[in-house]
């Protein structure tokens, strides 16, 4: 396992550039860059799949911290709901982190193919339904309220179907720890459509959660030598720069066509990984 890879300055430059693109697209589309980064590092650069996954997981932690900084102070992050769901997602993350070393590449390819296919379907079918109560309503113990700039009023919401949220969070943790994806793309639509959390609050809460979830498995993969420090550093720095650009650009772009493009890319990535598993 040790030093199988010869890391050249060119590899570092390519990985960093891939990080910029993945981070930029990820921030633009509201998901982590992992769905782009993992297939790129594995299929294009030729890194072993597990190294690609572990590298991506490091960038997930960085993305989580950066996105959370940008949403702090606007009451969008639901700290209590996030912490409760983190119990579930971290459990999934720890389990996946411990199992990771023993899983075959075939199993991981199958999982990656399945999850990217599922995400493609979610992206295509995503409904921007609003879940808003009257401003005087009591949000309950887990709900929240925040001030929405567009409408200029206070938004109040209550959390419904908590067991569903906990179940999906476990799954998101497993996906995070075994496939290097943040898992936000699974949690955000679920929190929004099934659990009554407005989209923005769901996205901000999920962004906060993916860092701890990834940190629940990343150290184990690090200890098992699935992290090549120079490559991980290049990817993390690239993603940090890219997500900054994506957030800036995201304020001005209509992302509809990008979502269609994303769904098409994901469908392709999904098929490729199913084919690799066979």
């Amino acid at each position, binding site marked *: 396992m040790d030093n199988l890879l010869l890391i050249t*300055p060119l590899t*570092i430059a390519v990985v960093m550039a891939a990080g910029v693109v993945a981070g930029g697209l990820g921030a633009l589309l509201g998901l982590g860059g992992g769905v782009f980064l993992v297939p790129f590092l594995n299929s294009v650069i030729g890194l072993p799949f597990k190294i690609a996954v572990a590298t991506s997981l*490091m960038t997930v*932690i*960085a993305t*989580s*911290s*950066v996105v*959370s*900084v940008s949403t*702090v*102070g606007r*009451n969008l*992050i639901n*700290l*209590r709901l996030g*912490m*409760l769901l*983190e*119990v579930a997602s*971290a*459990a999934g*993350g*720890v389990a996946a*982190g*411990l199992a990771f070393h023993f899983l075959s590449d075939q199993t991981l390819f199958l999982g990656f193919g399945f999850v990217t296919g599922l995400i493609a379907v979610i992206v295509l079918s995503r409904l921007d339904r609003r879940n808003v109560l009257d401003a005087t309503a009591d949000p309950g113990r887990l709900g929240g309220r925040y001030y929405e700039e567009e409408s200029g009023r206070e938004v109040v919401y209550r959390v419904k179907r908590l067991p569903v949220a906990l179940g999906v969070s476990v799954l998101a943790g497993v996906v995070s720890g075994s496939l290097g994806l943040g898992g936000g793309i699974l949690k955000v639509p679920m929190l929004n459509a099934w659990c009554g959390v407005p989209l923005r609050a769901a996205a901000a809460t999920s962004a*906060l959660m993916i*860092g*701890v979830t*990834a*940190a*629940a*498995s*990343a*150290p*184990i993969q*690090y*200890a*098992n030598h699935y*992290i090549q*420090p*120079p490559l*991980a*550093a*290049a990817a*993390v*720095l690239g993603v*940090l720069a890219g997500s900054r650009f994506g957030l800036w650009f995201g304020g001005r772009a209509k992302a509809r066509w990008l979502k269609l493009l994303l769904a098409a890319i994901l469908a392709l990535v999904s098929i490729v990984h199913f084919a690799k598993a066979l």
Partner: protein
Amino acid sequence: MTTHSDALARLEYHVGRLFVVGVTLSAAVLAVGLALFLFAPDGPGANRVLNAGLLVLMATPMLRVLLSVVEYVRMGDWFFAGTTLAVIAELSVTVISALRAKV
């Protein structure tokens, strides 16, 4: 209810500060490590610095959880203090497994 949401706002503020420090520090350390790796690849320094940067990166969300438990205990919100402790217990499993694998 207001005092409670004030306390939550304070927690959110501290969390934000922690993230700014964590991200800035890890990015700076990783950048230095990467520069060392590229321009002085033979020294032992590069890997040490890179590893330090990655450790800061991984520790940042963990510190956020520790910060939260302190704040929930101060609030006297025992349900969420317990929830946070459960996450800390899970993260301890991770850290212990990582340390054992490393040895």
